[in-house]
């Protein structure tokens, strides 16, 4: 079974959302994911990176660290920022809750990550940044 790891750091700007999900998709391609699995991973990564840019750094920029590990047919991604952190993680994870209604956020980010990945873990503290870790088993449905 293929085991692999990667780490990439990039600026917290919206131009890099596409870059981040492209890297994530390229990283898992060796696991032979389905088109749907790839879309789900790309969407979940996009949500995590957008959260870091908009909520973590509040659009002021900074660095985002994305790490990936592949083991036993599973992929684990983490997206970390050193931004303002989340004061109430439970509330932030509620569907349709948004900390920034004025910015047209749909409040669906965490719900999408939870739905599209098998597990989602959020570590955060006020002023201490946020780290989102997600795992997904690839190729569960064999042809």
């Amino acid at each position, binding site marked *: 079974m293929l085991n692999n790891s990667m780490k990439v750091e990039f600026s917290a700007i919206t131009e890099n*959302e596409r870059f981040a999900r492209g890297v994530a998709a390229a990283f898992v391609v060796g696991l032979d994911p389905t088109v749907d699995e790839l879309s789900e991973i790309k*969407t979940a990564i996009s949500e995590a990176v957008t959260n870091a840019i908009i909520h973590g750094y509040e659009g002021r920029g900074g660095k985002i660290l994305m790490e990936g590990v592949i083991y036993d047919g599973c992929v684990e991604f983490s997206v970390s920022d050193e931004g303002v952190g989340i004061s109430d993680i439970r509330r932030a994870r509620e569907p349709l809750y948004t900390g920034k209604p004025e910015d*047209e956020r749909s409040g669906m*980010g965490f*719900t999408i990550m939870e739905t599209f990945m098998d597990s989602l873990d959020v570590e955060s503290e006020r002023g201490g940044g946020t780290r989102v870790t997600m795992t997904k088993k690839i190729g569960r449905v064999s042809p």
Partner: protein
Amino acid sequence: MEMTIMGKYQTLVIRPDSELDQHAAEKIRVGADKLLRKTGLKNVAFDMRRVRFMDSSGIGVIMGRYRTVCAIGGNVAVFGMSPYVERLISMSGIREIVIIAERLQDALEEVAGIC
């Protein structure tokens, strides 16, 4: 992203590019609101035929246009979705507030209330 004014239907048709993320959504928001203010159009139709990737920012930009035109008695339609985009739209619950159509013509007639 392209925007087309369909005067007969009082509708602004917004056609996003293939990747509808926060970066693209912000451009649509700014461009569409400017045009809506300038033209006084009441309705918006999202042409999703080009969209291959979307995240919750796409849902946000549709919801946002709904809020804008709802205040002036207009409607929002979404048409030409891939199964993946449709899945995200269904998860969000915006099906309850926007018109879902298959083709441009259906979308235009429904937002303008002539069907």
